[in-house]
C-alpha cells in the first residue's frame, strides 16, 4: 500500500523527501563504490532489483481475496541487506509509480520512507536480532517479513495521520482510523507475506546455496 500521487500536502511531500534522502544517498554512495571496484555487481544488482519489483507486484492470495501486493522488503532485506534494499526499493517505487500507477512521484519520498527504510530496517533488525537470540531461522524470517510488511503499513498510516489529524482525536485518532481501515487487507497480507517468505527462504537455503553465497558477498561489500 503506497500513498497515491497528490494525496499528501506539498509541505509533507517535501518533508518526507528530505527525510528519505540521506538513506537513499548513503545507499547509492555504497553501491557506487562497490560498482566501481567490481563492475560485475551492476548486472547482479539490476537482476536483484527486478526480482524485488516482480515480487512486490505479485498478487497474493489473502483472506479478503483482494488483489493485495506484498512489499517484498522482508525477503529483500534478508537477501541483500537493508542498505541495498533502500536503493532498490526507491527504484522499485519509481517503477511502480510509472508502470503500475501505484504510488506517485511527489509521494515518492514518503513511500520510500515507509517501504524502503522503515520496512527493511525493521525486517533486518528482527531477522538479525531473533537469530542472535537463538530463535530458529523460520521464526526469524517469518517475523522479519510479516512485521516488516506491517511496519510499512503502520508507517504509511502514521504519515497519513500526521497529514490529516482528526478534528477531535488529533494525530492519534487519525492514526487509529487509517490503521483500522487498512488493517482489513494489510494484516492478512502481512501474515501471507510472512508465510510465503518462509517457504521461499527454506527452498533457497536448501537448493540455491550458490546463489545465496553470491548475494551474501554482495551484502558484505555494500554494508
Amino acid at each position, binding site marked *: 500500500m503506497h500513498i497515491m500521487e497528490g494525496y499528501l500536502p506539498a509541505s509533507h511531500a517535501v518533508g518526507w523527501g528530505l527525510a528519505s534522502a540521506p538513506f537513499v544517498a548513503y545507499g547509492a554512495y555504497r553501491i557506487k563504490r562497490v560498482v566501481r571496484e567490481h563492475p560485475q555487481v551492476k548486472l547482479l544488482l539490476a537482476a536483484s*532489483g527486478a526480482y524485488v519489483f516482480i515480487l512486490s507486484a505479485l498478487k497474493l492470495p489473502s483472506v479478503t481475496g483482494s488483489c493485495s501486493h506484498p512489499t517484498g522488503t522482508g525477503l529483500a532485506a534478508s537477501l541483500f541487506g537493508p542498505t541495498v534494499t533502500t536503493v532498490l526499493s526507491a527504484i522499485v517505487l519509481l517503477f511502480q509509480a510509472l*508502470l503500475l500507477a501505484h504510488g506517485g512521484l511527489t509521494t515518492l519520498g514518503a513511500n520510500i520512507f515507509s517501504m524502503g527504510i522503515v520496512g527493511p530496517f525493521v525486517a533486518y533488525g528482527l531477522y538479525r536480532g531473533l537469530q542472535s537470540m537463538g530463535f530458529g531461522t523460520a521464526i526469524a524470517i517469518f517475523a522479519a517479513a510479516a512485521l516488516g510488511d506491517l511496519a510499512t503499513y503502520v508507517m504509511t498510516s502514521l504519515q497519513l495521520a500526521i497529514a490529516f489529524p482528526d*478534528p477531535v482525536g488529533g494525530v492519534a485518532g487519525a492514526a487509529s482510523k487509517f490503521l483500522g481501515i487498512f488493517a482489513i487487507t494489510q494484516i492478512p497480507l502481512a501474515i501471507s507475506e510472512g508465510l510465503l517468505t518462509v517457504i521461499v527462504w527454506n527452498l533457497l537455503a536448501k537448493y540455491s546455496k550458490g546463489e545465496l553465497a553470491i*548475494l551474501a558477498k554482495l551484502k558484505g561489500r555494500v554494508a
Partner: protein
Amino acid sequence: MRLIDRNAQTNRWRQIAAIEKVVLSLGMIVLGLCSASWLVQGLILATMLLLLRFGAGVGLADILKSASVPLLFILASTLAQIVTLDVNHMMPVIGLSPASINAAAFVGLRSLACIGALLFLALTTPLTDLLRLLRRLGLGAEVSDVALMMFRFVWLTLDCLERGRQSQANRLGYGGYRRSLQSIGMLLANLLPRVLGRAQRLEAGLASRGYHGELRFIVRERPLSAGRLLAVSLLLLSIAALGRIAG
C-alpha cells in the same frame, strides 16, 4: 504493468521528447498541490484526461483500468478522513464530522487530479525515456545503469513468472490458500536463481561485445519543440490564473 507500458510504447505522442511531457505532467502536479481551488483541481483532471484520450489516443478503458488501484486508495483514505474518532475518552467515539467531509473531498479531488497528471506521463512516455532523462539531470551513472538494466530484467522475469504460473495452474497448483501460497513460494524460489543466472550469462554475452563494466550506448534524441513547450507553459499559467480569479 503491460497495459501501461504498451500504451507508453505505442501512443500517438510516443515520439514527443520526454522532457516536454514531464514538464506538463509535473507542472500540473505542482499546480494541483499548491492550489486550494476546487476549480483548478477540476481543470487539471479534465485537461489531463482529455489530452490522454484525444491527444495521445489512449483508450478510455485502459485509462480507467490503470486508475483502479489509486481510486481504491482514495476511496479508503477519504472514508477514514470523513469519520471522526475520539480516543481521548474511555471508549472511542465514532462520528461523522461535516467539517472534515469538505476537507476530505478536496484532498480526494486533488489526488484524483494529480493521478490524472501522473497517468498522463505513465501512459505516454516509456519508463526508459524518463530514466535517461534522470541520468542527464545528474542521477549517478551507476544507479541509473542499474535502473536501466532493471527495466530489461523486469520483462524477462515477468515472462518467466507468467509462464511458471500458467504451468503450475495447469497442474492445479492454485486450489486453496495453502496450496497457492506453496506454489507461489516454489515459483519465487525458482525465479531468483534463474534471474541471477541470467545476469551472469548476460555478463558473458556483453563481454563478447567489449563490456568492461560500463553500459555505454547511443540514444536517438527526440527533437525538442519550443512551440509545444510554450503551449504547455501557457496552459499551466492559464489554469493557475483561472484559479486565482475564481478563488
